[in-house]
């Protein structure tokens, strides 16, 4: 089926298609063939059409993936504007805790809920998602799934009984964006690559019918198999173009809306020049842009060195580069766990101290304490340079740029830093996961044998730091455990879960982290003590929460962007075209 979809996309690429935004002026929609044929089509400009569409992987955390996920992939609960979780009655008849020994949640799926290929949406989809989230590296908020013991299918698959090892206070956040297990579970690379070429079936109001990256076009059509209220527009056509082309298209009526994935001061200026009548709404994304200092390698496993490196970074400059005077300027991330847009967020960053402000003196002291000396070639330990590899997902700006800046800052401070931009699937799926450690262990003796001068063999992928998206708008306790927690202890029948991307595990913090995960603390799951400890650990240096900008013209009515988790197009099924 995946192959069939890909073939369909390829066919679409061969047939005459409207041009990319920017290749030529777009005709006003009223005069378009679609309009002439009575098709209610909304053209949405996008500045980047990159990445896959699995919203659960760090590799696919792109604005476009996030934007379309909720239109195609059904969720058990939705997040409301104030952060509360509300059952999705379109998918479920009920969802409730039905047992405490063991902790059990039962989901009753609506009889008529089905994928667009007529396969019922079933407990199998719950089980597939739970299993992959528990076992795959580089996923978003895996801790809740690590608590699941099993998913039992009942009632012909229309009831999913989810049995947990331990109670899970944030259970309502589970099973967002179900994936079609019947297509992915047996496909090679199904989890990480099965949705790279598009989403083959839909359980939402729209279905993806065409993805042509060479032409920069993605088409969502109304899902005729959708069992709930049908979408009011027939088609949403995403067309890629430069920001200038997008602004022109909005002005001339060539597009009815646009998604700017990294709006900056130039974007805002272009939109002002595009004239009145445009409604820009900044939608914070569900992640933070963060610098991760991994504890997996021999260098940064030493907290003193991590803190020294953090003290050498010019965080304000990194933030200024990343936000580029755009809407994210107001969303500086000063909490280790919560995004600025999250209810209950408050800054916890140590004022004026590392890593909020650079502190070369502290860095020098800590590195000296750790045994390093500073000479004409920079910092060395036993004659070997202090060498750090800084990685970023390739083709996912601004991560690469910020990693580049980190490298420059470290080099200026005498550290031999190197940049590696790595394919996102490989970076999050392999290089930061347990397989990398295995591979490095195998390779290291040979490498050391070739050159006795090399540093001691590393039991990891060699990546010391990463600039990456850090999930930050879901369940706080889940985020805390997923990003900073040790792999949870699971029954002997289950394989241990992969480590977090930093390979960080602090046994003194772990009880607090697990308690927050399993108990619904009215005071909030993230204590000031935890935050303080995390800042001191210098494992993650959050920078800011990125935003995307949804701009619509007066031709579109009913535009209500969702929460960061729901995405900017959450209400697209209720959009209407004004003639």
């Amino acid at each position, binding site marked *: 089926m995946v192959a069939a979809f890909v073939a369909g996309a390829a066919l679409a690429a061969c047939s005459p298609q409207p041009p990319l935004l920017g290749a030529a002026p777009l005709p006003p929609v009223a005069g378009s063939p679609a309009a002439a044929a009575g098709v209610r089509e909304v053209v949405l400009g996008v500045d980047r059409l990159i990445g896959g569409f699995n919203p659960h992987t760090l590799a696919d955390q792109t604005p476009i993936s996030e934007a379309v996920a909720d239109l195609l992939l059904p969720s058990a609960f939705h997040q409301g504007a104030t952060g509360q979780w509300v059952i999705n009655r379109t998918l479920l008849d009920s969802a409730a805790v039905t047992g405490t020994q063991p902790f059990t949640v039962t989901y009753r799926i609506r009889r008529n809920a089905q994928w667009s290929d007529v396969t019922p949406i079933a407990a199998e989809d719950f089980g597939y998602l739970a299993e992959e989230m528990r076992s795959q590296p580089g996923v978003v908020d895996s801790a809740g799934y690590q608590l699941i013991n099993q998913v039992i299918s009942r009632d012909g698959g229309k009831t999913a009984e989810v049995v947990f090892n331990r109670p899970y206070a944030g259970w309502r956040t589970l099973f967002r964006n179900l994936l079609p297990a019947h297509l992915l579970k047996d496909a090679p690379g199904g989890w990480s690559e099965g949705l790279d070429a598009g989403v083959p079936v839909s359980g939402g109001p729209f279905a993806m019918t065409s993805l042509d990256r060479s032409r920069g076009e993605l088409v969502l059509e109304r899902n005729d198999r959708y069992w709930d209220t049908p979408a009011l527009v027939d088609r949403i056509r995403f067309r890629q173009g430069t920001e200038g082309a997008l602004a022109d298209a909005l002005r001339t009526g060539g597009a009815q809306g646009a998604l700017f994935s990294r709006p900056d001061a*130039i974007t805002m200026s272009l939109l002002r020049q595009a004239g009145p009548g445009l409604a820009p709404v900044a939608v914070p994304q569900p992640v933070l842009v963060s610098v991760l200092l991994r504890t997996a390698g021999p260098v940064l496993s030493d907290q003193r060195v991590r803190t020294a490196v953090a003290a050498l970074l010019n965080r304000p400059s990194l933030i200024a580069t990343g936000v*580029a005077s755009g809407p994210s300027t107001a969303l500086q991330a000063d909490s280790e766990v919560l995004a600025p847009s999250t209810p209950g967020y408050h800054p916890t960053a140590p004022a004026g101290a590392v890593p909020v402000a650079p502190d070369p003196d502290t860095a020098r002291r800590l590195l000296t304490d750790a045994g390093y000396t500073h000479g004409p070639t920079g910092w060395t330990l036993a004659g070997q340079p202090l060498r750090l590899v800084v990685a970023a997902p390739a083709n996912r700006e601004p991560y690469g740029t910020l990693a580049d800046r980190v490298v420059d800052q470290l080099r200026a401070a005498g550290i031999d830093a190197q940049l590696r931009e790595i394919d996102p699937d490989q970076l999050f799926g392999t290089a930061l996961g347990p397989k990398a450690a295995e591979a490095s262990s195998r390779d290291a003796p040979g490498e050391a044998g070739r050159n006795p001068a090399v540093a001691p063999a590393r039991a990891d992928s060699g990546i010391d730091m990463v600039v990456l998206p850090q999930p930050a708008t879901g369940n706080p306790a889940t985020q805390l455990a997923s990003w900073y927690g040790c792999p949870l202890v699971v029954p002997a029948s289950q394989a241990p879960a992969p480590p977090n991307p930093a390979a960080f595990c602090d046994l003194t913090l772990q009880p607090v982290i697990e308690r927050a995960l399993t108990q619904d603390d009215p005071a909030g799951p993230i204590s000031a003590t935890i935050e303080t400890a995390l800042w001191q650990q210098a494992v993650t240096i959050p920078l800011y929460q990125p935003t995307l900008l949804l701009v619509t013209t007066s031709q579109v009515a009913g535009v209500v962007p969702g929460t960061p988790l729901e995405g900017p197009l959450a209400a697209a099924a209720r959009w209407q075209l004004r003639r």
Partner: protein
Amino acid sequence: MTAPSRRNRSLLNLLAGLACLAVVTTGCLPAGGTSRPDVGAPANTQARGDEGNGSYRAPRVPPGPAVFVAHGAPFTGYNNATVQMNSDPDNDVVLNQVLADPFVVDGNGKFLLNSDLLVSAELTSKDPQVVTYKIKPNVRWSDGAPWDCSDFYLAWLAGSGTTTHFTPATTRGLDRATGECRDKNTFVETYRSPYADWRENYMHHVILPAHVLERQTGIADVTALSATSAPADLKRVGDFWNSGWNGFNAATMPASGPYQFDNSTTGEQTVLIRNTDWAGNPGGPATIVLKSVPDAAAAVRGLASRQFGVVQLPADPLLADRLRALAEQGVVFDQRGGSTVEHLDLNLTSQLFRDPVVRTAFAQCVDRNELVDKLVRGVRPETQPLGSLALLPDDARYQDLYSSRMVADPQQAQVTLERAGWILDSDGVYSRAGQRLTFAISHDGSPAHSMEVELIRKQCRQAGMEITDGATTDLGDALRNGRFAVALTTSSRIPRVWSVADHYATKGPLNYQHYSNPEVDAALSVAETEYSESTQMDALAKADRALADDLVSLPLFQLPIMWAYSNSIDSVYREALSGVTWNANEWTVK
């Protein structure tokens, strides 16, 4: 030597023509303009007098009636090689048939020995390089005086920079050689260093009547003059050479080519009649009347009404459309890529553009396709952004070196800048360490260039660059004095090596960008001195690649040239530098 080259002057004139483009912007094709095939028989690029052995003889042509040619500005001077005239193309179009060159260059740029006048013109020694011109006996000017070695000698003396009393537009080539007359019909050049483009030295109407100059100045024998002659004598001949042939005076302007001036010539109209002293076969048209018609639209109307048989016009999309529409009235419209290219020159001494990151980002944000769409494709639909600083798209060795560098992607430009530490300010302009990414693009103020700069300004504004319009009334002065960050300029790619060396060799006379790359210097040195064309082209291609790597100038596009003629003439072709009349003697007119 800091005077602009003769090629540059031609380009400025062409540019003046391009200025019309801006006026008719609304007539431009939309993006991705539709193909509009040109109408009429393919023009003949070959000289009919090509003997097939590297030489040219004026062919026998049936005598025909007069041909009226419309061109832009009035004829202003017989000596078109002075810094003042600077190879004015409106003079060239008149002089093509009046002043003979040692070689005839056909529409493909092929050099053919003018064997109606010369026995030979050869490289007779390589070390040292010696070139010998042997003139046929009894070749005469139209006033009966011999066309002989003294005329070559005068051209060398005036153009070599040997004395400062002459003010030629350029000394390139001649400045490497010493000229002497071995006898009345043998002129010999001995070079101080090898020079592969020696055939260029006496082209473009620089062989002028020494006997006229002698008569007018009282100098008995110009061949006796040298740098050590009495300054007063040199001044006299220099003064006359510099300005004595300005305007029109039939008595001092005899012909050495197939046609000569008729006394009925006026300021607005030059009348050429057959030169009865011409050694070769007589030209076809009985007379050639070249009329200055500054209003190009009037020239088109004149062609439609058969007032004119040939029109040489500035490249203009609206005029091109009008001419295409006249096909059924027997008008043949034609166009081609010219020898002139436009480029953005970056001043490497400026604080901004000495930084390769800024050069890279600027290159990435300029959308050349939009420029070509709006400025060029209306005339020449097949034009693509230019991919070379050394070669033209028609050259066999042409390679597009810039599409991968000039990606027209402002977001990529932003990434380039941000990775180098530039931070976007709230006004949407990048800055770094207190320096803002703001600069002007200097240009000559023509409407077309103003439009180009405005397009580039908008394109790169999306990349966080603040660009201002640096129009100036004296671009040359701004360039010479380094008062620019980026300059929108034009230059000719004929001759190729000259052009590149002038602009990009460390000591190039037009290297106002202060570019210096030993690799380029070495390659250009080989290109200038290597006689083998393939080796010369290899070296030029190497220099071209190094220039692209350094992003010193950003090529934009090749300017088109266009012309039209009545189908009562068999074939008219516009040679890139000389214009439509380069082979007017060969025209067969019904």
